[in-house]
């Protein structure tokens, strides 16, 4: 059907190879690669589908999954952000894809089941809008000409015009605007050409458009999520103000409008990314920011990227200094507590403890700081309380609740249920009986460290060399 485009592409395979090399290297420091959040069935005559849980296709030598073809559209940049490998003053090879060849590459990878779809970001080649137009053109070719129904994650460049954000959002499954630096002072110091308004503007627009489509699902926990709530949009006498229509609409009119505009806007929601360790910001600051992003913008996810010192800059950690991988790992654990376990940022860290304990996971740390909540009775506690026990996850809670309908749990049942007893046993009673070995007051922390510390750390020990190097 698209034989000529395909032949053209194959003729230029070598040139594409060169671009692919450069633009993969340029894109890989963005951590997001998930293809989750939206279920879409295939259609006759088209190719592709999307899976709610996402699908990983491979794992690179660093243990990160490849789900999407993650490349930059271009690495020619007019900005000069200190932390970025593509900044204007960096000496790297520069190139750009063409919309047709990138679409063709995506299609050929996709039909061979190498990838779930395309993750497209870009340096600022000229202006944000000019670059955005080219990216949008790529999505259009995929969706409209090639009948591509796979996953598209579009990165929005700060400062992109609202009209273009809207067009991109209707072609992509997920959109994201990267915050990168957790404070506006950091932004001013390290990325002076980016303005906070340029980042927050598109974010707000994305949330609002999704609110209009009644498609917002926020973080929370499995048992009570923060669902869509109207107050995000202005209300008056039973009508809601629709920024895109420019007028007040009743609930029914709103449904009709969403139905009529059948191309849903970013059905898999929006995400963002923060860089960890490039600035002095504490974990408290980072988690408080994430928490407010979840509450205010209904982000599906906030990604953390441990800063890898690749640039010589007096403003940043020196080249070759350690990458804060363990801190990143702990932040993700804390993030999980906020998204799936109903914790708030100030429970995980507080002004007394502004940084996460690197030795113990944040749930254990929280439990040790709150002895008044424990031990908890497995056969009585509610779902949200059970979720707070170290060593108990969502699946264990569901199983506990299910079995309790029929019979009380015995201690021996708990292992079969999948609980991590070596942690949990110090925090629970089962039908009134405590099974943890006697640990002296104040010694529990050391005790837990001794039995789990080694394992938790070794998972992350990075080797500084690539295999065979």
């Amino acid at each position, binding site marked *: 059907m698209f034989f000529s485009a395909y032949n053209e592409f194959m003729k230029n395979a070598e040139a594409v190879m060169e671009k692919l090399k450069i633009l993969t290297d340029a894109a890989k420091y963005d951590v997001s690669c998930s293809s989750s959040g939206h279920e879409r069935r295939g259609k006759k005559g088209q190719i592709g589908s999307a899976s709610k849980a996402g699908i990983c296709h491979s794992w690179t*030598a660093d243990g990160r999954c490849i789900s999407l073809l993650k490349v930059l559209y271009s690495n020619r940049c007019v900005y000069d952000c200190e932390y970025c490998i593509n900044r204007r003053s960096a000496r790297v090879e520069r190139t750009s894809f063409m919309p047709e060849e990138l679409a063709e590459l995506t299609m050929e990878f996709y039909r061979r089941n190498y990838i779930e779809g395309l993750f497209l970001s870009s340096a600022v080649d000229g202006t944000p809008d000019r670059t955005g137009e080219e990216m949008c053109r790529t999505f259009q070719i995929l969706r409209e000409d090639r009948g591509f129904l796979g996953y598209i994650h579009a990165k929005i460049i700060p400062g992109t015009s609202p009209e273009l954000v809207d067009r991109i959002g209707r072609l992509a499954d997920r959109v994201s605007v990267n915050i990168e630096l957790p404070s506006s002072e950091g932004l001013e110091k390290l990325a002076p050409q980016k303005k906070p308004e340029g980042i927050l503007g598109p974010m707000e627009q994305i949330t609002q458009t999704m609110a209009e489509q009644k498609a917002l699902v926020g973080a929370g926990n499995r048992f009570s999520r923060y669902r869509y709530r109207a107050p995000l949009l202005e209300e008056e006498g039973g009508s809601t103000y629709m920024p895109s229509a420019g007028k007040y609409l009743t609930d029914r009119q709103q449904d009709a409008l969403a139905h009529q505009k059948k191309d849903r806007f970013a059905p898999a929601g929006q995400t963002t990314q923060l860089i960890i360790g490039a600035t002095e910001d504490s974990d408290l600051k980072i988690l408080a920011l994430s928490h407010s992003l979840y509450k205010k913008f209904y982000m599906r996810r906030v990604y953390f990227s441990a800063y890898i010192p690749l640039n010589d800059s007096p403003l940043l950690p020196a080249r070759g200094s350690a990458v804060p991988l363990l801190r990143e790992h702990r932040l993700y654990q804390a993030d999980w507590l906020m998204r799936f376990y109903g914790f708030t940022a100030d429970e995980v860290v507080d002004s007394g403890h502004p940084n996460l304990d690197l030795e113990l996971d944040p749930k254990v740390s929280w439990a040790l700081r709150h002895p008044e909540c424990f031990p908890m009775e497995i056969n009585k506690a509610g779902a949200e309380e059970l979720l707070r026990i170290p060593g108990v996850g969502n699946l264990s809670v569901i199983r506990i609740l299910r079995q309790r309908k029929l019979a009380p749990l015995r201690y021996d049942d708990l292992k079969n249920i999948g609980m991590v007893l070596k942690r949990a046993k110090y925090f629970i009673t089962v039908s009134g009986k405590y099974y943890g070995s006697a640990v002296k007051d104040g010694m529990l922390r050391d005790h837990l460290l001794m039995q789990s510390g080694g394992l938790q750390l070794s998972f992350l020990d990075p080797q500084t060399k690539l295999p065979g190097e």
Partner: protein
Amino acid sequence: MEYVYDGTFDGLLCCLYAHVHEEAAQAILPEADAGQLGLAPRKKVTTRSREAERVASAIENKISRNCLRRCYRAFLSGEPGREMEILSYVFYGFSKGKDVDLLHGDPIVRRIDLLNHKVSRETQRMLGMLRFSLVEGAGGEPLLYAHFSPDCDLIQLVMPHFLNRYRRESFVIHDVRREKAAFSAHGRWVMQPLPRDFSPEHTPDEEACRALWRRYFTNAAIRERVNPRCQKNFMPRRYWGHLVENPEEKRPPI
């Protein structure tokens, strides 16, 4: 009594039938493993679809449809000894009724949970790790061909996903270990035996596309974060032979 069956799920259901109507089973073995010396007298069970259906509908009606589904999936896991575990589960289910699956703490139920988990996890992995190649089809039309050798017998579990995804392609998924393949065209598919050494001819452009993917794969790794143990955790070595990329590939110096 030790029952020997033909290695199909229907055959296993017939063993359950014999367990009730003839003599209690002490062991159930597939034909392929029946060479080992047994302790009890042995009997070959003939697979009859009427008996299999009776057992299946008894499970559905007296326990639940989900229970039957869980038995089938546990069976696909290919774990040796799963036959007796399924038997215990089914008869425990007959005594407990539809609520049997709520008893997560029970070792019998837990075992079936684990077998089901094994099958779903590998199915999920295969959805991502199958690699299709464009090969010359019989009628001159190129078609997509993928080979794999999963631990569980799961072609039929991945088919719905690919039928839905490749609405305009014809494709073949070849289970090399079990010497069979699913052939699909126009939304329909059949399972046929296909020898282990079958390997169709690639189209002329296939190699170029593979090279692009290998390049992408190698370059996407971040040098400062390399962690082969973590990589192998997610993507065990036994699957590597069927990939296009080489997870251990050396990266050329910058």
